[in-house]
């Protein structure tokens, strides 16, 4: 029995749907007045990107994308929005730099046109990298093999980076010590310890 839809058609449909989700989410992030709405639109974009990862056989990265980005980073954004009570609308009337927004739009469109024009014919040179062939193995195996052999030093350095980030976040987020003096509110929180 022949399949109802050819695999190529399904691929194209999935790509179009995911691309629409990604672009709609990105537009929502940019144009939402409320930061909470921006964060929720960011989740939509991240899910669309995850779908595109699955479409390109990057299953592990799609899972990581959903867990780390949608599950941790956006929740962190929402925590900060709620914690600071900054879920107010942005004041757009006051514009200190006149004509900055149209200029930003124009520059963005010009940059996009340049990228598409320059890369139109030759997206890749066809040169092979050193990381190892993609092959037909499951992508988790191939990724792990490359990560723990050729890129093991970088992998170790990321652990150092995460420790530094944790320490930095704790130092930045702790309140200045109130018992030291009355003018602690003016002190630099970095040097308050």
């Amino acid at each position, binding site marked *: 029995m022949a399949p109802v839809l050819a*695999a*190529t058609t399904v691929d194209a449909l999935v790509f179009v749907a995911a691309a629409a989700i990604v672009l709609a989410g990105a537009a929502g992030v940019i144009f939402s007045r409320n930061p909470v709405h921006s964060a929720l639109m960011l989740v939509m974009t991240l899910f669309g990107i995850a779908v595109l*990862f699955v479409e*390109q*056989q990057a299953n592990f990265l799609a899972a990581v994308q959903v867990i780390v980005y949608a599950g941790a980073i956006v929740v*962190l954004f929402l925590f900060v929005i709620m914690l*600071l009570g*900054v879920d107010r609308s*942005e004041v757009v009337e006051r514009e200190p730099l006149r004509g900055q927004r149209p200029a930003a739009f124009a520059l963005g469109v010009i940059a996009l046109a340049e990228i598409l024009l320059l890369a139109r014919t030759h997206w890749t040179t066809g040169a092979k990298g050193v990381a190892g062939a993609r092959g037909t193995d499951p992508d988790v195996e191939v990724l792990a093999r490359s990560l723990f052999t050729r890129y093991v030093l970088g992998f170790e350095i990321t652990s150092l980076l995460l420790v530094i980030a944790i320490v930095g976040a704790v*130092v930045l987020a702790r309140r200045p010590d109130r018992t030291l003096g009355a003018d602690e509110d003016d002190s630099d929180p970095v040097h308050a310890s």
Partner: protein
Amino acid sequence: MSVSPAWYLTLGAILFTMGAIGLLIRRNVLVMFMCIELMLNAVNLTFVTFARDLGDIGGQVAVFFVLVVAAAEVVVGLGIIVSIFRRRESATADDLHLMKG
């Protein structure tokens, strides 16, 4: 594979441009931060597309590292934003003009 890599790369370019425009036109520092995440995701999509197109796992390894760095960056960046907001009570980047000449 009916969808050619050029479509994915075009989508990545559009997404990156939208992130850059958003970074320029928004004033809320949290939303500006989200626009940086959009740009990082556009680059991730490009890396995965090249990994598939060239049959090379290096692109996916790069995405892995970008994810780790993005997580660390968000943690430190939000910590900085929290400590700024605690002292200034304002949500816009325009108010941060301490170093204005």
